[in-house]
């Protein structure tokens, strides 16, 4: 038994666990896996924060992202926004605190990993380069705060170092943040910051995003609308889709003194009659103090929820982008020949979680990427990774595109846009890049795409018809000179004159038919044999 080590020894090692080890354990969960993905995640965290901040303040976002190559696999990412800026006392909280696990239960539609976001990037930067993250911020008043923030892992706090106050002579408002990172790589692949920003721009038509690549190329993703979306409203949770743990968390935060009041106040669709029903089903008294609910009580209440009928949740909390805005966005980003978009009516999954599916198709121009390109979003945030395992991808693949006039799925210049809007997006994993196979979501995405597909099919049929007509016309015109010359020689006329008349009849007939699609008479014959004349 000489090899047995005592607890003191073991816990010495535990305490010695480094910042980088801590981070590595959680890196995958936070999206820092792979050289390219890590860089994109840094950009994602900054841009998401900026967009959310602008939205809440009702500001039209102007966002710049600048990626510089400092050495081999060594980059600096600088991001600037024009949001309301951060008062100095909140800087450590915003940039430094890892809120993982203590996320307030806000039943609200939001873009990303609320809370973990920027502090994760600060941590990644610190772990790979040993350097703090620089920032500049101003609320638009007389001064600008400049400083560097680093993370105290033990205390889960941000520390500001080298803080400076600068005069704000130009009235600038916003935030600049600059992370350095090693072990990352920039390229222009599907997983790159470039594609991430392009996709972000499509789902946020009100944002103007400037991107400067490491080689100095400046790319502008211009906004296609000046309408700032209304910030999403926090809505109370619906009794379906609640776990005993959720219930206990809510119960410990409520002001209500009795279970009855708690249920009526903190949930939607629970009236006093419904509360009575729940009490009798669960056997938990409505007079019970919420803070004193046991796990067992919570389980019984949740089971009672499931056995009770409620109205579907109200829909005012969700903020879809809107079909028209998506169409504008797809048009300005992809310059397609055709777009069709739809925002479906709200539905619920898992019995009571509200969601809305938005879909769009863009055909031609820069749409598609060697076949159908799927661009996925959850609450407007692009989902770039794990495409294969996503319910959206499955739904896109389940559509029989041939039925909608797409002849070759491998070659069609088609971009398929799907945005899932929900207070609770069912991700497959902590990476938050793929949606779980929820039957209702899958079906809604399909319906949305099939709806758009019908319009695509009409467009393609018209396009094909036009193409066929044009090539027919050109074929006919090809035979005009020979025919005209022979007719002219036979009749003693001028060949150019005959050719002119003949060409005109051909062009007039085939042009005319474009506007008059119903005409299937002599104008656009498709028969291969000569017709028998009427006797």
């Amino acid at each position, binding site marked *: 038994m000489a090899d047995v080590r005592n607890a003191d020894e073991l816990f010495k090692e535990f305490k010695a666990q480094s910042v980088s080890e801590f981070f590595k354990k959680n890196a995958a969960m936070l999206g820092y896996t792979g050289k390219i993905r890590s860089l994109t995640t840094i950009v994602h965290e900054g841009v998401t924060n900026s967009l959310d901040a602008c939205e809440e303040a009702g500001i039209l976002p102007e966002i710049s992202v600048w990626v510089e190559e400092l050495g081999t696999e060594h980059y600096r990412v600088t991001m600037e926004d024009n949001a309301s800026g951060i008062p100095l006392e909140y800087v450590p909280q915003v940039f430094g605190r890892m809120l993982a696990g203590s996320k307030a239960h806000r039943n609200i539609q939001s873009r990303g990993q609320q809370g973990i976001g920027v502090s994760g990037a600060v941590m990644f930067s610190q772990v790979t380069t040993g350097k703090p993250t620089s920032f500049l911020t101003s609320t638009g008043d007389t001064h600008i705060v400049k400083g560097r923030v680093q993370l105290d892992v033990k205390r889960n706090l941000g520390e500001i170092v080298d803080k400076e106050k600068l005069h704000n002579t130009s009235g600038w408002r916003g935030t600049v943040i600059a992370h350095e990172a090693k072990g990352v790589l920039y390229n222009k692949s599907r997983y790159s910051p470039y594609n991430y920003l392009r996709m972000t721009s499509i789902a946020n038509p009100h944002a103007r995003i400037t991107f400067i690549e490491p080689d100095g190329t400046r790319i502008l993703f211009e906004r296609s609308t000046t309408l700032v979306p209304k910030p999403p409203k926090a809505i109370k949770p619906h009794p379906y889709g609640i776990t005993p743990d959720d219930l206990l968390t809510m119960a410990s935060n409520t002001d209500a003194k009795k279970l009855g009041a708690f249920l009526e106040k903190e949930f939607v669709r629970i009236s006093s009659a419904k509360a009575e029903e729940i009490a009798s089903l669960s056997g938990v008294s409505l007079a019970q103090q919420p803070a004193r609910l046991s796990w067992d009580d919570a389980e019984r209440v949740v089971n009672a929820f499931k056995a009770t009928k409620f109205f579907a949740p109200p829909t005012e909390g969700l903020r879809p982008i809107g079909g028209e805005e998506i169409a504008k966005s797809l048009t300005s980003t992809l310059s397609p020949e055709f777009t069709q978009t739809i925002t479906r009516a709200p539905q619920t999954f898992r019995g009571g979680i509200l969601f809305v599916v938005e879909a769009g198709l863009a055909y031609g121009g820069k749409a598609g990427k060697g076949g159908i390109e799927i661009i996925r979003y959850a609450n407007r945030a692009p989902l770039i990774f794990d495409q294969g395992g996503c319910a959206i991808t499955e739904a896109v693949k389940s559509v029989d595109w041939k039925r909608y006039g797409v002849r070759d799925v491998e070659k069609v210049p088609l971009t398929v846009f799907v945005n899932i809007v929900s207070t609770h997006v069912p991700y497959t994993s902590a990476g938050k890049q793929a949606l779980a196979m929820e039957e209702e979501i899958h079906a809604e995405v399909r319906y949305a795409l099939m709806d758009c597909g019908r319009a695509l099919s009409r467009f393609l049929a018209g396009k094909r018809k036009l193409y066929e007509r044009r090539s027919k016309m050109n074929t006919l015109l090809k035979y005009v000179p020979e025919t005209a010359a022979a007719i002219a020689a036979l009749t003693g006329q001028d060949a150019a004159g005959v050719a002119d008349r003949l060409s005109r*009849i051909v062009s007039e007939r085939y042009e005319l038919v474009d506007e008059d699609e119903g005409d299937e008479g002599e104008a656009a014959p498709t028969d291969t044999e000569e017709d028998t004349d009427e006797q």
Partner: protein
Amino acid sequence: MSNEINAKLVELAQAVLAQLEEERPPAIHIPQRGLSNVFFDDGERILRLGDKTSKRSFLNIAHTKKFMQTMLVAEYAKRLVADDKHAGIRELYYALKHSIAKSKENTFEDQNESNIIIEDLERTLDVLREQLNLTADRRGFIYGDIEIRDSGDRFNASKLGRGGWAVPGNIEDITFKKANVDYILAVETAAMSDRLIEEKFPVQNNCLLVACQGQAPRGIRRLLSRLHVEMNLPVVVFTDGDPYGWYIYSTIKQGSINLAYLSNTLSVPEAQFVGMTMDDIETYELGGVTEKLKDLDKKRIEEELKYPWFQNRKWQKQLNKCKKMGVRIEQQALANKSLEFVAKEYLPEKIESKNFLP
């Protein structure tokens, strides 16, 4: 005559010009080709062209090229007639073949295309190819005691050596003087004709031998028709015993489906068939020298069984027998007996006893 032809060609183009001026889609009407527009005239016992026409429209992409080709051929024929020149139908093909501007396409891809257009023009304008100064390659020859006058030359077709006289495509200017023969024997193959000449069959049997060399060309058919009518000579046909040989006979007798519009000048409704028949195989014990029918032969039998002009007991019997036996018999298979057999026994016996099929 040539003025009339010229007028017909010009008229065709002028009709198109008129349509252009009225801004109507240009189209011409062409009598249809093929079996669907052919009927068997029971009274005259010949095939005739029906009155179904097709509309060939320049605006119909399936017709446009043919429309152009029709005009090209018409224009070329007009030049030939005006210059009093003759051209072979293959010459016409090469004269008109060239690439179409701004394309990889030719005006005509093969001679079959121009041949079809020439036939279309014949039907449409009701003129003969020869009247358009177009001639086909000569094929077929005659051998026998008949005096012929052609472009100032006068000769006897039995005094031209074993090769006989090669019949030109256009025999309209030829005149027949004196014929010391009792009937005409039309033979499918040149080889069989040579055999019969070597055996002195025409001399000994007092007949004029006509070698068709396959499907009888127009010159030969016109010659047979004219000799039959002008010199009052009966025609006996001798072909292979198979559906192709029998169709050669029926073409000589009542015209062909493709040239039904010419039947009245090209056919001999009174012609009779001497062989080969399926019965010959048994009668002359030729079972060992038959050939198996191919799929195409069988298909042809099925078609011929339905032709109105084969609707008689004797022909139905031969066709059905052929189908059942699954074999064909060639003229030259008679050599199995001996080289002389066909000339000394087979033909004399059958012709003497009038053992014919109708």
